[in-house]
């Protein structure tokens, strides 16, 4: 829809962010699209500009990259220059003519939504994937990076998003595995403790990764990368598992590295972080570069527009801290031992959900969220029936279907495998959670497939689920569309109690906004909603009251108006014992 009136929005930053609508856009893009000229000049130019638009830029870009193929060198001032990097998987172009340049000592952001091609791009940089076309220049010289070992030799280090650590090995062993074989193991152990202290990332060489927290694990990744003496450090979504305080510490480390002349390619979709940290940003959408900007001169929403390609639905929400009536769901002093060595015990958790309110629980993964969700949903039974009260009934000993029949719905964290069966068509997935609730779905012991298909159509229209076929298998949907289907399936009959774990994890911005608005509207109609999430932005956007969970302890709920990111961040790291956790 936006494509039809393609118009570049060029934002000139030197005169206080004025907005221009320029009908003939190609010419205005020209400067920006020629990194040889513009990037060299960026330091002189006071007006680095930023573009965002649709298709015409692409065609322009591809012409431009064709012209440029003839040139054999890159700007010698750049540490790394990439030209026309292309990678296809089958018929799907994950990266299509991507250009990027990085100067020594700069923190450069690579922005894009899930599936925009960021991971593919960095894998090519790190030698884990080979580009189908395109050129890589390192310090002005054309190179090929056949494998990660060669990337490390060049001076490119990588901190992975899903940690590439070995749980069964010690910290020192984890680091040794990635270093050249000649490195002495003993020297390495002392080196790593020195380097880790120097950068404020304390680590013990002999501890097993298995025993360490997520934050500590990330330190290993970073120290491992630093010990390779890289000139360029690629960081893939490094803050997704950190508390706001840990993020601050990480940023301090990154700024120190940058001041030492190390360049950092910072991959993220968290716009506020990019704005405070990064000097330049390149924006990727559907595998193509669609814009470049100076993040601190932009607003989060102007960058988001470039990432998504259209305006994102603005969520309307008036926090409503006052609660009326009786709680619809209560948990009272619930303690539950850990399921296994990896589990977290729940410690005297209490909470009340009131009609018309969204209560949010923040926390870093693995602090008891799954355990709490499971015991509220009935996947795990509570020690006694009175531990969980639903509409005034003790349900702690009832299974999940019975709790659904009483009128609650549960949306679990794992889309494929728990919320849906990957290989089953959507209409059959409708049965899985609704059979105990909707009598129309069954005729005696038999299934009424027609009803399920009708429900699926209703879900599809109400939540705008985009699917390739009428009734595809769950795994054929993108994350965002599948999540919309799951939310739609559960909320179709206007439930009064909704428990949801990670409602928009790994979901594109458009779908996320849709899901959040749905939850807000349901609360406005009198539903009591519990949202467990690791995304603080999301919670501040939709929740009325908020608490944090840390190592199985749940803090008191507070009105969002009376708390802030810092306070919640401290609670996420477990600092709330003094407040007297339980009323």
């Amino acid at each position, binding site marked *: 829809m936006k494509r039809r009136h393609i118009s570049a929005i060029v934002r000139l930053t030197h005169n206080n962010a004025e907005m221009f609508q320029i009908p003939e856009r190609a010419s205005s893009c020209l400067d920006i699209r020629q990194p040889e000229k513009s990037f060299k000049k960026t330091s002189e130019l006071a007006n680095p500009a930023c573009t965002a638009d649709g298709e015409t830029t692409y065609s322009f870009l591809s012409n431009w990259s064709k012209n440029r193929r003839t040139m054999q060198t890159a700007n010698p001032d750049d540490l790394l220059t990439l030209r026309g990097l292309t990678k296809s998987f089958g018929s799907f172009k994950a990266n299509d003519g991507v250009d990027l340049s990085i100067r020594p000592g700069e923190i450069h952001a690579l922005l894009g939504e899930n599936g925009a091609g960021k991971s593919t791009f960095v894998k090519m940089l790190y030698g884990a994937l080979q580009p189908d076309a395109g050129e890589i220049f390192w310090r002005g010289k054309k190179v090929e990076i056949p494998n990660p070992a060669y990337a490390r030799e060049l001076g490119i280090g990588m901190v992975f998003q899903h940690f590439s650590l070995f749980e*069964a090995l010690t910290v020192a*062993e984890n680091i040794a595995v*990635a270093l050249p074989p000649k490195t002495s193991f003993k020297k390495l152990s002392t080196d790593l403790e020195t380097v880790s202290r120097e950068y404020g990332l304390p680590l013990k060489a002999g501890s097993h990764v298995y025993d360490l927290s997520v934050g500590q694990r990330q330190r290993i990744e970073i120290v491992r990368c630093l010990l390779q003496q890289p000139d360029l450090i690629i960081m893939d979504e490094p803050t997704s598992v950190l508390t706001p305080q840990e993020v601050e510490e990480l940023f301090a480390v990154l700024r120190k590295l940058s001041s030492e002349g190390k360049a950092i390619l910072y991959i993220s979709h968290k716009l506020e972080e990019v704005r405070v940290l990064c000097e330049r940003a390149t924006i990727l959408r559907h595998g193509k570069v669609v814009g470049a900007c100076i993040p601190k001169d932009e607003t989060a929403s102007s960058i988001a527009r470039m990432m998504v390609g259209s305006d994102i639905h603005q969520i309307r929400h008036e926090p409503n801290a006052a609660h009326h009536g009786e709680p619809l769901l209560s948990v009272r002093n619930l303690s539950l031992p850990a399921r296994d060595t990896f589990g977290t015990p729940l410690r005297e958790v209490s909470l009340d959900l009131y009609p018309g309110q969204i209560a949010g629980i923040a926390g870093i993964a693995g602090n008891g969220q799954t355990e709490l969700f499971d015991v509220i949903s009935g996947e795990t039974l509570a020690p006694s029936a009175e531990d969980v009260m639903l509409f005034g009934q003790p349900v702690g000993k009832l299974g999940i279907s019975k709790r659904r029949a009483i009128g609650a719905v549960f949306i679990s964290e794992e889309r494929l495998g728990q919320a849906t069966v990957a290989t089953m068509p959507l209409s059959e997935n409708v049965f899985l959670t609704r059979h105990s609730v909707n009598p129309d779905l069954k005729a005696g012991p038999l299934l009424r497939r027609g009803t399920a298909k009708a429900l699926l159509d209703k879900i599809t229209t109400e939540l705008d689920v985009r699917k390739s076929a009428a009734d595809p298998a769950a795994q054929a949907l993108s994350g965002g569309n599948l999540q919309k289907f799951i939310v739609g399936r559960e909320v179709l009959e206007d439930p009064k109690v909704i428990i949801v774990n990670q409602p928009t994890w790994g979901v594109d911005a458009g779908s996320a906004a849709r899901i959040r608005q749905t939850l807000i509207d349901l609360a406005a109609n009198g539903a009591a909603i519990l949202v467990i999430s690791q995304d603080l932005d999301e919670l501040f956007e939709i929740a009325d009251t908020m608490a944090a969970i840390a190592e199985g302890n749940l803090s008191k709920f507070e009105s969002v108006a009376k708390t802030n990111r810092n306070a919640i961040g401290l609670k996420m790291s477990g600092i709330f014992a003094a407040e007297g956790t339980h009323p």
Partner: protein
Amino acid sequence: MELTLAILLTIITAATPLLLAATGELVVERSGVLNLGVEGMMIMGAVGGFVMAYLTGNPLLGIAFAVLLGMAMALLFGFLVLTFATNQYATGLALTILGLGLAALIGEGFVGRAGIRPPNLYIPGISDIPFIGPLLFGRDVLFYISITLVAGVMWFLFRTRQGLTLRAIGDNHHSAHALGIKVIRYRYLAVLFGGACAGLAGAHLSLVYTPQWSENMTAGRGWIALALVVFASWRPLRVLAGAYLFGAVSIGQLHAQAIGIAIPSQALSALPYVATIIVLVIISQNRRLTMINTPASLGKSFVPDR
């Protein structure tokens, strides 16, 4: 004294093939590959070792040929499981069935022939020391190989960089690949090593244990070796302890049957299995230690994205 020595010697003989096969499989599993074809590789080693020794008159050539056949079987397994990423369980079972059938076919004309036993070590003076001499310094070459293998594997896994890399691959092949480690190459080498060890174990059966060939002569020892690796929580010294415990109890129960103890013979025959499982379960009580030693990617196929 004479009887004790005789019992100890038979225990060593019973334990050695298990130890050889299990040590090889331990390395394979530490790399994250589960090869259920140990029995098949072992019996190919048994028939190959016997036939080659019989035809050439040289038991050492027989042993070498057994190693080669074990490795050939392992190569076939590796080709399917590593190159084509087939299901490791199904492929391993198929390898066992193939090995048993193929060995029976090859050994058809050799049933009942007398085999050629490799000579025992003899160091003048030292091997003549009463009791200790024949026990430790007068054994066959495969016994010394088996003990050296355990020590070598321990040193390799826990003291060398390649050993560290191998353990890392077994723990998480995706991470290893992301770091640029050649996962498939390491696994091929590990699988081939496992095949060589199973071949040695087979040669021990047909050249040392009972120097002759008969169909199905491995009699499930490949499976016992597999079980030992798991119950020993992938630790070489525990495999050694498990193999000798199993050997000791199975020899002990034979003697008990001979004396005529009033326990049903079936129960006594089951004793080595029961005893080994109980002891290894008891020493594996520390869950944290078990977790750290368990190769987390065991049995999972690895397909690098390209």
